[in-house]
């Protein structure tokens, strides 16, 4: 019996792709499916997934939970938990289409939720922390139940399979959003568990990641001190928690977070290219958050409410290409995935290692 994510650490190679309309134009999910399909050989059919932003305008004030259940019992228990903590505004199965290459699907449900004011007040937490803790609680404590998407006006769709098949299975052409990311997975050893597919998400943060980080256990053991539980033992999970911790809890900007997880080398810091204030800050980050330095190859696209961010490890040990066309910005492991949906980009370039690309909506 193969062990699934969470019981064993499984390295994987991958393909990632993403785009955003800075003007906030809503673009159909079929476009991201087409983009990732051009990198078919970077996946091996053991995981594919998508994140779409701006896809639930009619419920944009509610937290949208997407949940996998192994059984109806797990669903009943989880729904009891949800009822105790949230006002459930809407619930339904997520619409899917039978697909010959997608099998063994769990029960896949969607909930639009508002935290119960009394519960929230008595928890003495801010709303997002309350929701995050509820997600971590369900995933950690309720057997057979897994929340894989929990942000507002956004959603993650993932499964075991090639990403283009996963996109068809979830009928992504029926959704439209201002930003999309996609992931095709090439794990080296997994029985294929749906929860182990990517993107990984907490609140509105989603990560698609290509690489295998050598700092994993140092990062994991640090972040777990702050109430996170790395149940899946995947790089993507721990990177998502690092972003959540630094951005939401420590109030650091995404630019600064890049300087922590892909910190400039000391030789660069001392090279004279930075002002004294900047040098002091970089040294402060490398001291205080030294355990959040991420080493080994990675390229990631972070999705968040109102934008995308792309980042490579500081040696750029993984490929990543960016392109611009009008108000659109594209990011992908390979240029072909961009050309497939934007053949006439104004500019195509390869971001340097450790140099973040941060794109936000013009009105944000």
């Amino acid at each position: 019996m193969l062990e699934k994510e969470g019981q064993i650490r499984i390295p994987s190679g991958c393909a990632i792709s993403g785009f955003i309309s800075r003007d906030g134009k809503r673009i159909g999910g079929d476009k991201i499916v087409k983009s990732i399909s051009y990198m078919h050989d970077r996946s091996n059919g053991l995981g594919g997934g998508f994140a779409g932003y701006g896809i639930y305008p009619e419920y944009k004030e509610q937290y949208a939970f997407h949940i996998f259940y192994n059984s109806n019992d797990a669903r009943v228990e989880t729904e009891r938990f949800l009822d105790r903590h949230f006002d459930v505004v809407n619930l339904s199965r997520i619409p899917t289409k039978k697909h010959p290459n997608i099998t063994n699907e769990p029960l896949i449900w969607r909930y639009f939720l508002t935290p119960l004011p009394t519960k929230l007040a008595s928890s003495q937490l801010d709303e997002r922390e309350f929701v995050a803790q509820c997600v971590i609680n369900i995933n950690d404590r309720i057997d057979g139940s897994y929340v894989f998407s929990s942000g507002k006006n956004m959603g993650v769709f993932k499964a075991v399979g090639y990403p283009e098949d996963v996109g068809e299975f979830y009928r992504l052409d029926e959704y439209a959003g201002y930003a999309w990311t996609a992931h095709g997975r090439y794990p080296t050893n997994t029985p294929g568990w749906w929860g182990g597919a990517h993107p990984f998400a907490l609140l509105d943060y989603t990560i698609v990641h290509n690489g295998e980080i050598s700092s994993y256990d140092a990062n994991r053991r640090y972040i777990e001190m702050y109430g996170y539980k790395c149940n899946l033992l995947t790089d993507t999970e721990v990177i998502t928690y690092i972003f959540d911790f630094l951005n939401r809890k420590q109030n650091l900007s995404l630019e600064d977070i890049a300087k922590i997880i892909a910190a400039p080398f000391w030789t660069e810091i001392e090279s004279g290219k930075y002002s004294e204030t900047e040098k002091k800050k970089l040294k402060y980050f490398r001291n205080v958050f030294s355990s959040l330095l991420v080493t080994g190859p990675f390229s990631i696209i972070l999705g968040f409410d109102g934008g995308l961010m792309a980042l490579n490890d500081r040696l750029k040990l993984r490929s990543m290409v960016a392109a611009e066309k009008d108000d659109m910005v594209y990011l992908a492991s390979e240029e072909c995935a961009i050309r497939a949906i934007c053949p006439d980009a104004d500019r195509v370039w390869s971001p340097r290692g450790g140099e973040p690309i941060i794109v936000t909506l013009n009105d944000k």
Partner: protein
Amino acid sequence: MAINYYQPLYEVMRDKDRCIKCRACERQCANEVHSYDEECDVMISDSRQCVDCQRCVSICPTNALKIANNPNTFRQNSNWSQQIMTEVYKQAETGGVLLSAMGNPKEYPVYWDKILLNASQVTNPPIDPLREPMETKVFLGKKPKNVRFNKDGTINTDLPPTLELSTPIMFSAMSYGSISKNAHESLARAATELGIYYNTGEGGLHKDFYKYGPNTIVQVASGRFGVFRDYLEAGAAVEIKMGQGAKPGIGGHLPGAKILEDISKTRMIPMGTDAISPAPHHDIYSIEDLRQLVFSLKEATCYKKPVIVKIAAVHNVAAIASGIARSGADIIAIDGYRGGTGAAPTRIRDNVGIPIELALASVDQRLRDEGIRNEVSIVVAGSVRSSADVVKAIALGADAVYIGTAALLALGCHLCRSCQTGRCNWGIATQRPDLVKRLNPDIGYKRLVNLIHAWDHEIKEMMGGMGINSVEALRGNRLMLRGVGLTEKELEVLGIQHAGQ
């Protein structure tokens, strides 16, 4: 005729064909093993006095000398070994406590040797430190719980006092008195050149060495020898010594014979008096007392210097460390039961304390479980023998290591474990001027620098193989470790998996 109940441990073997009777061995041996018989024109050796320090062997120009174990054996007995029998004879003769020096030499498990490191293959590229930057700089000290912002929204980058190390290795506490002035000078100069720190031990700081203050950790031990305002202000950090791995639970004793003029001035005690460090600090009988001493020292140094609390690794070390982490200390130093000493009761050295590998693993995990790992840095000692031990210590969770024995080896020590006699032929653990001058600090410091450079390079090679290009990504990264031949319980305490898993 007196009866010799026990026999010399060693046999001095001289190749008479090679020996040119230059008498160098005679001049070099402070134990007076070698002598020249003029009448018979022959060199003779008294093996009884030999401690196997290898000085004569190393100095002999014709390679004529060898020291071997005495082949004479008592009747074999797996329970009553020759050593145990000999010790009984000695105590029956003298009525005294057995004394030993340097670390526990017994056959207890060395966990470093049962832990293997990872390397990258295919899914993740190894990194070549000769081609790519590879970083070993570390900071020791408290980290703030939360980022603080200034009124203008910029980040407040003020930090509690911090030690900055070019590589995660420091020289551990060895007092002036237990080792010679030249040994201290070698350590101080090497630390300065390397951008690391050495530690005064509990013997005060010689006036000639105040200039190395920025790379000096000054120790405050139970005897408080040499502790005064200038001393505290001279160092980069202050270390409170609560215990020592070689002799947990007991104090120290530097015999009056070693308290010569310089040492008496440095320790601030009269010449010729015994320097006795009590077992406890007499102002620390509990954890809340420790907190008061930590803050007294911080007050005295205007909160500008980190305070280290050094403890011996004992059974409930994790709970003790947790208490220390909440006491205001910035750094915890933990000394394992194999740590060295200038002199300790043999029974204490060989039977008290626990392995540093297990102590480190449980302390690091406990502090993380309690969410207070960032309150303190962890430095481990006793014994770290090579760069591989350093890498394993860091992956288990240490911020840095202290090395003592390895540093003395670099200065020539051959681990004869006779420091307490004060007749160190290598000029290290002695105060006899004729012996001290054998250790040239100009050469000694260079050998220490070489050693640390070599280790630093090896650390980078091992990190590169793992695909890690900065030591902070190695710290606590236990996934990079696997045990071999360990039990489930040992693996559980170490927090690592078995090889093949």
